[in-house]
């Protein structure tokens, strides 16, 4: 089980959240096909501390940035995307 400390709802089981993966910066307003391909497909898929986006779908329904260690599933920081 993975506990995520939601800044609005407190520590909650991860099955209340939906996972949308590592945060990849969006390309600029006029990207080349190559830039789009990189954005769509190339993932760091790192083993270590990663900042990723989660959605508290069965809670406050806010988007959250979660810092999680992908080797141990330890969570060290959770922020509301809106700050």
């Amino acid at each position: 089980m993975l506990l995520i400390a939601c800044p609005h709802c407190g520590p909650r089981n991860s099955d209340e959240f939906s996972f949308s993966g590592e945060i990849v910066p969006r390309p600029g307003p006029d990207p080349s096909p190559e830039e789009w391909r990189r954005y769509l497909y190339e993932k760091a898929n790192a083993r270590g501390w990663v900042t990723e986006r989660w959605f508290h779908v069965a809670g406050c329904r806010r988007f959250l940035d979660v810092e999680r260690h992908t080797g141990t599933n330890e969570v060290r920081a959770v922020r509301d995307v809106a700050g």
Partner: protein
Amino acid sequence: MAGRGSRYSAWALVRRGLGGKPWPKVWRHHELRPSYDVVIVGGGVHGLATAYYLARKHGVRNVAVVEQAYIGGGGSGRNTAIVRSNYLTPEGSAFYDRSVKLYERLAADLNFNVMFEQRGHMTLAHNDASLRTMRWRAEVNKLGGIDSEVIGPDEIKRLVPLMDVGDRPRYPILGALWHPPGGIVRHDAVVWGYARAADRLGVHIHQGTTVTGIEVRSGRVAGVDTSRGRIATGAVVNCTAGWSSLVSELAGVKLPIVTRPLQAAVTEPVQPFLDPVVVSGTLHVYVSQTARGELVFGASVDPFASYSTRGSLDFAEGLAGHVLELMPSLAGMRLLRQWAGLCDMTPDFGPIIGPTPVDGFYLDVGWGTYGFKAGPVAGEQTAALVATGRVPELIAPFGLDRFARGDLTAEKGAAAVGH
């Protein structure tokens, strides 16, 4: 080299038993050579099969298989050992059909009993939409010469008497895709069989050896740094699962892969009652009974990316509920243990197998939840690719460049993933 006493037979067993002499080492420990023609990263079914076919079919014997832990300890020893070829796409089913054919004669080829039991593979349909997909898959399979048919609840009940095919409100069993050549294999035996055969042909298997760097000089592979020293080589094959992004990154190649754990569990052993492999895509569960009598359960990949191989209570609870939905009379059975393996998921649920922009760096990765059943064919085709430098037709649809071309494979016949 295959010498006296290296073949397994009833006669050899009697002789060894009476003589009391120990069996020779099945694979040996070697010092690291300063150079190899081919270095394979990852000592699982894929890496060992690639090494075996390189040596056996192409005469490339100066090959090292470099494994950071012990052989068969990753995905090869953690899967649920199911083999089938009833995929949805023509390229997918042709590929896995070749794998089933290789598995059928693997025990004879390797002189190692891999215990391939073709007890049939049954994929249940709980609604009209999945029944329609089953019909589609059956027709694609039949055109490719694969034994695959849609069957009704009466036939399902005949094949699996414990199945609840009653009139249930939530997940009624409307029919199934029935695939007689499918079945289960002893997955450790496949690893050991390939390792033994490759060792006999002169391949060096280096366990406990971590790859720490891949040297690329002017767009070409020049060598591999390991925890036991440097190896000069012109060809490196990434045959890892779970670690494929990280190993490719060492050569500067980025992959469209996200690693997710897939959990499985096994029950206490009971008398044989379940012959075929039973799968429900809707309920995300697959069940088979091993030769030892244990029930092996698998589910879908975990809902978030991770390199952790810990099991979770969420999984065990969900799994138990889904199994009882199909076979309520199993309610008294106890789980013995659960575990997880790492699945490298690609955006189109197809593998990535072929060359890369770095000359001499090859991929056999992205095997998601379907790597074990593809082991022999992937090894055979990767060996051909490395030995000849040409991409064999069977793996042409699975190249890394398909993502740049927008030519994805869309394999909806893949198991254990939501579509």
